[in-house]
């Protein structure tokens, strides 16, 4: 039997064909039906404990759990039949009898699967009456995690994550019966580098993030697809923003990169995206130093400098810059000989998530080092800085210039600085052009496995800052070398036309999950 053998069945009156072995709960998605569930999570081994996903299967006397029942040919499944609805209503009632109903102060409210399903299928009133509810105090599980046992529905997702995905079995179900609660190893804290995932996995507000505690209500948040900037793994994330501030990052499922997870280091990345030390207007070097101006003047001055530059151009770029900006910056240097360089922080050792192949917090702590390499940038940063003093033009692309002596760049005379913040060394620039950071623009990164992945604008740019692709597009247009671009997609289209490494790709083909770059052309082997 082939692995790809298809099985046809009917779910809620919809005919579907799915690969043999598919679980009903997954097959139902194809029929457009989400079977209410708690313990099931596609990234964890099946537990079948919450009994929420009970559905009716024709010719089977008992209701079946959709999360553990594989499809069979000709099966007729009813998710919304009266017996199935009645059973799930029962589960919801049981889950609520000991629940504190403290939604008004619970961080999960608004994105809580208990709220959602009770609203959808539960009963309007409790029959529990005056019995006291179970009470256990809040526990600090260490790391970023608080455990609020009173809200726990014992779905065991957190336990299974630590057991089977993180391979660090420090959580368990302690006690029995209605005294049961999640326990943690007496000598341990939830400090595994990937432990924060238990907060996302928890379907209710039982495991909560200290960092996010009482920061925002779920319904105030805007969600934007992005890519983590923490390392070269390129985990897909969602940035949650409120009033133009990123308040948290959470993993966005991508089966080929990070499945459902992201590491705690990556979660913390959002903080720098809200930094208040931003350049908010273009600046021109005048007699009294840098003076704010408008874009027209700034772009005109920058174009004039580039046109007048003779000799070598040095581009000092950040490995956090978008692929588009990295490409356009080199293009801007045009015919003259160009040295492009970047540098990356390397932290020895990786922190793998053992249950997922090829997923780790990588030692290369930048999201687009591979993109920079593909586009011809080298890591000979110090050498590039040394040549800068003799270069005709130095273009800095959001490189923070830590440790670069101001006089080195001053020697070059002609520095154009595109950046989010203005480090001391950049004050020698003739033109400073304020750009967007990753949360403020559309763009792409190329991860360590040469996968190009898009990120989307999550919040407004401060002041007059614009995306680097826009700024560089305007300059290219002034020089008659392409541009201007109305969108990042147009900038990417130019890249894919001009650079064979990106041939055939577009924002449409990249979608929200990215694709691998076309394989590098294999070297021609001449037969002997």
């Amino acid at each position, binding site marked *: 039997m082939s692995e790809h053998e298809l099985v046809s069945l009917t779910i809620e009156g919809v005919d579907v064909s799915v690969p043999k072995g598919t679980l009903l709960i997954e097959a139902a998605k194809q029929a457009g039906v989400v079977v209410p569930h708690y313990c099931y999570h596609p990234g964890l081994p*099946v*537990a*079948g*404990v*919450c*009994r*929420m996903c*009970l559905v009716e299967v024709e010719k089977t006397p*008992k*209701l079946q*759990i959709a999360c*553990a029942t594989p499809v069979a040919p000709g099966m007729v499944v009813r998710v919304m039949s009266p017996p199935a609805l009645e*059973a799930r209503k*029962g*589960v919801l*009632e*049981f*889950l609520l*009898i*000991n629940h504190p109903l403290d939604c008004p102060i619970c961080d999960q409210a608004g994105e809580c699967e208990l709220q959602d399903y009770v609203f959808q299928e539960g009963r309007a009133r409790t*029959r*529990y*009456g005056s*019995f006291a509810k179970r009470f256990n105090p809040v526990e600090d599980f260490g790391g970023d995690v608080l455990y609020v046992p009173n809200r726990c*529905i*014992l779905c*065991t997702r957190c336990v299974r994550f630590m057991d089977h995905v993180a391979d660090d079995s420090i959580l*368990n*179900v302690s*006690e*029995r*019966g*209605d*005294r*049961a609660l999640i326990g943690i190893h007496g000598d341990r804290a939830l400090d595994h580098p990937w432990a924060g995932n238990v907060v996302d996995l928890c379907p209710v507000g039982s495991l909560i993030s200290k960092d996010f505690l009482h920061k925002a209500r779920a319904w105030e948040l805007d969600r934007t697809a992005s890519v983590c900037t923490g390392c070269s793994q390129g985990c897909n994330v969602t940035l949650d923003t409120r009033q133009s501030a990123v308040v948290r990052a959470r993993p966005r499922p991508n089966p080929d990169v990070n499945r459902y997870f992201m590491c705690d280091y990556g979660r913390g990345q959002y903080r720098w995206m809200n930094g208040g030390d931003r350049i908010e207007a273009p600046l021109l070097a005048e007699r009294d130093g840098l003076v704010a101006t408008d874009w027209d003047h700034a772009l005109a001055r920058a174009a004039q400098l580039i046109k007048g530059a003779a000799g070598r151009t040095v581009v000092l770029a950040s490995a956090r810059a978008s692929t588009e900006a990295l490409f356009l910056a080199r293009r801007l240097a045009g015919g003259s000989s160009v040295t492009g360089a970047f540098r990356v922080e390397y932290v020895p050792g990786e922190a793998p998530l053992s249950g997922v192949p090829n997923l780790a917090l990588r030692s290369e702590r930048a999201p687009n080092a591979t993109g920079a390499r593909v586009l011809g940038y080298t890591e000979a940063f110090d050498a590039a800085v040394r040549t800068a003093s003799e270069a005709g033009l130095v273009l800095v692309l959001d490189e923070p210039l830590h440790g670069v002596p101001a006089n080195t760049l001053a020697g070059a005379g002609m520095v154009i600085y595109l950046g989010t913040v203005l480090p001391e060394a950049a004050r020698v620039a003739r033109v400073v052009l304020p750009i967007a950071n990753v949360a403020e623009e559309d763009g792409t990164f190329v991860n360590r496995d040469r996968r190009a992945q898009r990120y989307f604008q999550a919040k407004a740019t401060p002041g007059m800052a614009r995306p680097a692709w826009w700024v560089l597009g305007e300059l290219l247009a002034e020089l008659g070398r392409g541009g201007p671009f109305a969108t990042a997609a147009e900038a990417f289209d130019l890249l894919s036309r001009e650079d064979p490494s990106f041939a055939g790709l577009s924002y449409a083909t990249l979608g929200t999950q990215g694709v691998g770059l076309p394989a590098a052309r294999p070297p021609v082997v001449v037969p002997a």
Partner: protein
Amino acid sequence: MGYPHQPHAKETVVLSQYFGDPEARTYQGWVKRGGYAALRTALARKPAEIVEIVKESGLRGRGGAGFPTGLKWSFMPKEKSKPHYLCCNADESEPGTFKDREIMRWTPHGLIEACAIAQYAIQAEVTYIYIRGEFTEPLAIMQRALDEAYREGVLGANAMGTGKRLDMYLHRGAGAYICGEETALMNSIEGRRGNPRIRPPFPAAVGVFGMPTTINNVETLAAVPHILNRGAAWYKSLCLSNPKSTGTKLFSVCGHVRRPGNYEVTMGFPLKDLLYDLCGGMRGGRTLKACIPGGSSVPILNREETESCLLDYEGCATQGTMLGSGGVIVFDDSADMVYQIMRLARFYAHESCAQCTQCREGTAWVTKILQRILAGDGHQKDLDLLLDLSEQMTGKTICVLSDSCAAPVVSGIRKFRQEFEAYLTGARRPAGAGVAV
């Protein structure tokens, strides 16, 4: 013979023949009584032949579900590609049941012989005998017998001198009722929390340590040497009613009878005779009110049902209950059924492994409602609520512990509704401190 009583003429003594006979506990004593002959016969035959004989005998599981034993054995893979295991379920924790305990206390070598035969029949290298943690005396007796069996060459690398290897271990539970459920038992042996597993996969495919496994109750296995010694036809002939129920069964009778204890009778024996003849009837001139025939997990019978119930799988089903483990709990007219049912529910609430929502929350909630009724604070709607919750707790969970909690509640309310009503209307006053919740 019924222990601790003298055998009654109506008993059919097979498994209990040596109850109360300390000499039968020793290897020499057991061999003198014909012990280990069946094992010798078995090892001289092909495993599949033994499975056939057991199938032929009609033996069914005595642990609760009554599944045909030979059929269960035949589910084990014929072609061995992995190690096989036999688990002997000696966790006996069902309230009202205490028959396996006596088998282990008096005929430990009988059980070892039985396990060895079954182990050979299913081609298992190893048997685990999983003993309830509180059974300290049976454990000591079993351990002594097992040591003897190894010493005498019954077990080990050259079992009975046949060159075949048979190994057997005692595994002591920690006293959780749920560990008697077969998949929880396997988890417990593996050193995990005793949680029942979802099925499929079934143990014959993926059992203990992920290997094909058969699990049988002590009493089920204990019948096997007798079947080999005396033949499947003989065993099959032990039948007073339905031909699908064969052999003898030990009933542990407790409660308001004159002579509580273990009694061994032929399948199909009238429950009425068991209670009135063998057990000597009710205490002190009282009358029978109710009876739970199969351990605490099965529906309660009222007096009429009890008196017409035949003790086999089908006879119990006819009365709307189950033979279960054969733990017969008897209530006379002094019993407060509301209180008794609360006690049962409280047991299940305590023992629920907490995996399934309905069971974890339902068992506790049902107990609280029953306690409220007993305290005189019940609401008129409570009975309907109890029935509705019981419905939610039935047929929807991983194992049947949840159903087991619901069964006595539903049958209790149906059959003794007036006792509940009496509390609800105030006709009956809350029980005194001694009986209180």
